[in-house]
């Protein structure tokens, strides 16, 4: 679901290879294998799933994932499509007794009164315990129960009603009928029931995702619903099940006086609202649910000086002026001296972001550096890949990196030079401890690879350098364990094996939306697109803007780092706006024709909101017509469901040598083939409340990447 296994996966398209294994009928259950792809676009994965006639493509309408997933949950709960015994396990001791390694919170009681937290032993008057379950109707602390607990149950304690997570989930799933779900997803009636039935009766069912369900304003709940489906069929950490991957090998630089960042982040992530007013005027994201930060909010915050003004900006590895949905805010922020008075960029090219920065520090390519690469979930053993430069060389004595271009430095080296200049304690002489100098990237990584799981550092004769990483033996006996009578589990060396799996998200239920003061819900909700105040979009908007924005990526491109490779660019010299034949008929267009398109917020480009940017926009977007309209060339294809305006990323570049550019008055290498095609990001709809940022998940911080309304007209 929203996971393009044959187009986007690493290392080495591993899941695609697993699928080949099933398809080739060599796996143990290969004959019964069915691959169902739920995606608005007929992805390469869908092409493979349907090739031999066994699989299926379900062209779901963008942003309706919650209806599909909760609809599946509803069917499974009402039709005994779940593992009752497994879900009834309340504790580790019962799990062990019954031959399971994991157990769930499905029997734990949750309050029906806000904040809807787990009932604790203290609140139930039983003693010290984080959770309380019902055993034959009697409240019991979870750790004291010796048998299965009541699954679909509830009770009243001190006048407050408590229900098990299972019952709360069932009631939530029953808020909509399956007919409503099919209709909202715009798929043939009965599809969800059919999929849920096939799924729950399969031998090894698994539903997996990547960014499709997550990068949406309901992304947090979509992901939670998807994980719950896996929990219901007891496949978490199972062989052939849903594997979250396990800890990679780790090293460390054990500097005695390391300094850590502190204070409130500009993107208001990882912090609760700390202002004086009852409600915040801008969103704040909890560290629990948005652990990586909320990049789009960085730029709108910087422009507004909320929660404070920034003094300087250092960009590395990122190209937000091109990659950010609703990128006009990013570009205006970079052009606005008050918002971002001093800007630096470490970049290998004159990228879209770098060209707006005051200082550019030429980088080696991001592959040309020291570092490492962790394992991803498809790899079931513990691994760590060592990344080493291959073009430049190291000075044998000082280990300073020498690039083939005289002005170029590895980004790590730049950062360490800055750190030394700032006098940060973990760098320079004795930075890594007495006698351990951290003067450059090599020093740092050499030290990193001497601790924890590593020993030899970057010793050229050590096994780390010789093997190019550290790898656990991938033999099946290291991947799986047969210690449990209920079936095989993955081994997860280095990870947490015995664990409780939470369907209910207590930490989310204890958090409030900073802008409304209302508690978030601990379970997934039937929602499509919501704004920062969790309000649905005005339905009238779809009358004027009936199309939906949709994006995807080619197999052979990254978003912003590969188009200037002309070999790769030549595979597909330009992109198009892909539309369905039904829409082409309505619009009266055929492949190659031009249309104009606008979003409900793209006309803001001509207002004072973007007064610096609007001076240049036609230089960057030659297809901008003014008034919020952009022109695109269409391609008519049945690979896109009706109602979509689908544009693949990586094209329509305006930096990285796509346009003419000059240094000290001298024209620099450029090639218009780099900038061929179209870029969709200015057409992302801005949040109707906040106005200057794409629509963002108020809990998880993901951007609404698909489905924002568009108006398309033939030219």
């Amino acid at each position: 679901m929203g996971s393009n296994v044959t187009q986007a996966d690493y290392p080495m398209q591993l899941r695609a290879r697993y699928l080949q294994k099933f398809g080739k009928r060599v796996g143990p259950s290969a004959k019964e294998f069915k691959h169902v792809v739920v995606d608005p676009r007929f992805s390469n994965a869908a092409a493979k799933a349907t090739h031999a006639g066994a699989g299926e493509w379900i062209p779901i309408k963008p942003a309706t994932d919650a209806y599909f997933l909760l609809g599946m949950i509803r069917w499974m709960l009402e039709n005994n499509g779940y593992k009752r015994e497994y879900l009834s396990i309340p504790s580790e001791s019962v799990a062990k007794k019954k031959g399971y390694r994991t157990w769930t919170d499905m029997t734990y009681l949750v309050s029906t009164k806000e904040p809807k937290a787990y009932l604790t032993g203290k609140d139930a008057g039983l003693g010290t315990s984080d959770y309380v379950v019902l055993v034959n109707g009697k409240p019991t602390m979870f750790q004291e129960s010796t048998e299965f607990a009541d699954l679909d149950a509830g009770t009243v304690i001190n006048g407050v009603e408590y229900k098990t997570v299972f019952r709360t989930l069932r009631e939530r799933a029953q808020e909509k009928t399956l007919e409503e779900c099919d209709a909202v997803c715009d798929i043939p009636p009965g599809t969800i029931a059919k999929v849920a039935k096939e799924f729950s009766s399969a031998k090894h069912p698994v539903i997996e995702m990547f960014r499709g369900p997550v990068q949406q304003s309901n992304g947090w709940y979509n992901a939670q619903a998807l994980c719950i489906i896996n929990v219901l069929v007891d496949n978490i950490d199972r062989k052939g099940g849903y594997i979250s991957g396990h800890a990679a090998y780790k090293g460390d630089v054990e500097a005695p006086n390391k300094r850590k960042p502190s204070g409130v982040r500009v993107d208001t992530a990882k912090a609760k609202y700390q202002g004086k007013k009852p409600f915040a005027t801008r969103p704040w994201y909890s560290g629990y649910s948005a652990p990586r930060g909320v990049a789009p909010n960085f730029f709108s915050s910087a422009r507004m000086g909320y929660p404070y003004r920034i003094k300087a900006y250092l960009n590395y590895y990122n190209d937000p002026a091109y990659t950010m949905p609703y990128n006009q805010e990013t570009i205006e922020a970079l052009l606005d001296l008050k918002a971002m008075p001093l800007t630096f960029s470490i970049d290998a090219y004159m990228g879209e972001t770098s060209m707006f920065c005051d200082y550019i520090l030429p980088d080696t390519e991001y592959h040309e550096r020291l570092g490492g690469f962790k394992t991803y979930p498809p790899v079931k053993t513990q691994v760590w890949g060592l990344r080493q430069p291959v073009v430049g060389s190291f000075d044998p004595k000082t280990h300073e990196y020498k690039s083939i271009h005289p002005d170029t430095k590895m980004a790590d080296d730049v950062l360490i030079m800055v750190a030394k200049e700032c006098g940060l304690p973990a760098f320079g002489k004795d930075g890594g401890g007495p006698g351990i100098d951290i003067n450059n990237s090599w020093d740092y990584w050499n030290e990193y690879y001497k601790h924890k799981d590593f020993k030899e550092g970057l010793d050229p004769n050590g096994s780390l350098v010789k093997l190019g990483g550290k790898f656990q033996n991938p033999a099946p006996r290291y991947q799986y364990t047969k210690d449990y009578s209920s079936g095989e589990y993955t081994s997860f060396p280095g990870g947490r094996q015995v664990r409780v799996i939470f369907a209910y998200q207590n930490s989310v239920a204890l958090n409030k939306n900073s802008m409304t003061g209302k508690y978030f819900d601990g379970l997934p909700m039937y929602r499509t697109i919501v704004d920062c105040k969790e309000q649905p979009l005005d339905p009238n908007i779809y009358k004027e803007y009936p199309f939906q924005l949709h994006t995807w990526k080619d197999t052979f491109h990254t978003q912003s780092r590969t188009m200037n490779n002309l070999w790769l660019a030549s595979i597909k010299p330009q992109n198009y706006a892909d539309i369905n034949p039904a829409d082409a008929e309505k619009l009266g267009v055929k492949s190659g024709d031009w249309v104009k398109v606008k979003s409900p917020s793209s006309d803001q480009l001509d207002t004072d909101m973007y007064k610096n940017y609007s001076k240049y926009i036609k230089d960057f977007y030659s297809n901008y017509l003014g008034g919020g309209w952009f022109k695109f060339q269409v391609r008519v294809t049945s690979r896109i469901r009706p109602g979509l305006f689908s544009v693949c990323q990586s094209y329509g570049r305006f930096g990285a040598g796509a346009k003419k550019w000059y240094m000290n008055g001298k024209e620099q290498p450029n090639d218009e083939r780099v900038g061929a095609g179209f870029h969709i990001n200015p057409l992302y709809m801005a949040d109707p409340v906040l106005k200057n940022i794409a629509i963002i998940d108020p809990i998880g911080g993901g951007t609404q990447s698909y489905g924002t309304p568009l108006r398309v007209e033939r030219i």
Partner: protein
Amino acid sequence: MSELNPMMPEEIIEQSFKKPGPKQYTLWVDLEYCIGCHACTMACKSENNTPVGVDYNRVIEVEEGEFKDSKKSPDVRVYFVPMPCMHCGQPACMAACPVGAITKRKEDGIVLINKDKCIGCRYCAWACPYGAPQFSAEAKVMEKCTLCVHRVEKGLKPACVDTCVAKTRFFGELNALTDYINRQKAAKRASVGAGGTQPSVLYTK
């Protein structure tokens, strides 16, 4: 399963190399497993260092069926079809060449263009039904897939075969491959059309 493709034992390749000529080296592409990643195209460009616009190998996408009504189950199929030179039994390019620059080697059936003889008239490009011959604007001559003859002569597989992520593209001798495919009941032969030139590359789906 080993990471090697279970449909293609290594013995077939060993047999193919050992078999005395005249013989026909060729490729077998199993369309069922091609994921359209274009890694073969890039490996080819890298191995042969071809300029932009000259591609000895391409992967085309063939779309079948139509999907217009979201209330009905879609009936769409997409095939990714890698297109190298077919190293034909009766090469149309060879017949069309006015200066005899194109030859088919007896010992291994590989069709090659002699760049010293080629005058860049592009007749071969017009004649070839598969778009294999490519005009190099830099060298002003025609170029095309050589089946990595420089590798094959050293007992190595072509670069596209070695790099294939989905393990769906194989190298071998025509009869050895055909025998093997015929023994595999699951593999159905597919045609790339225009069989008049006797294309040697085998497709299954």
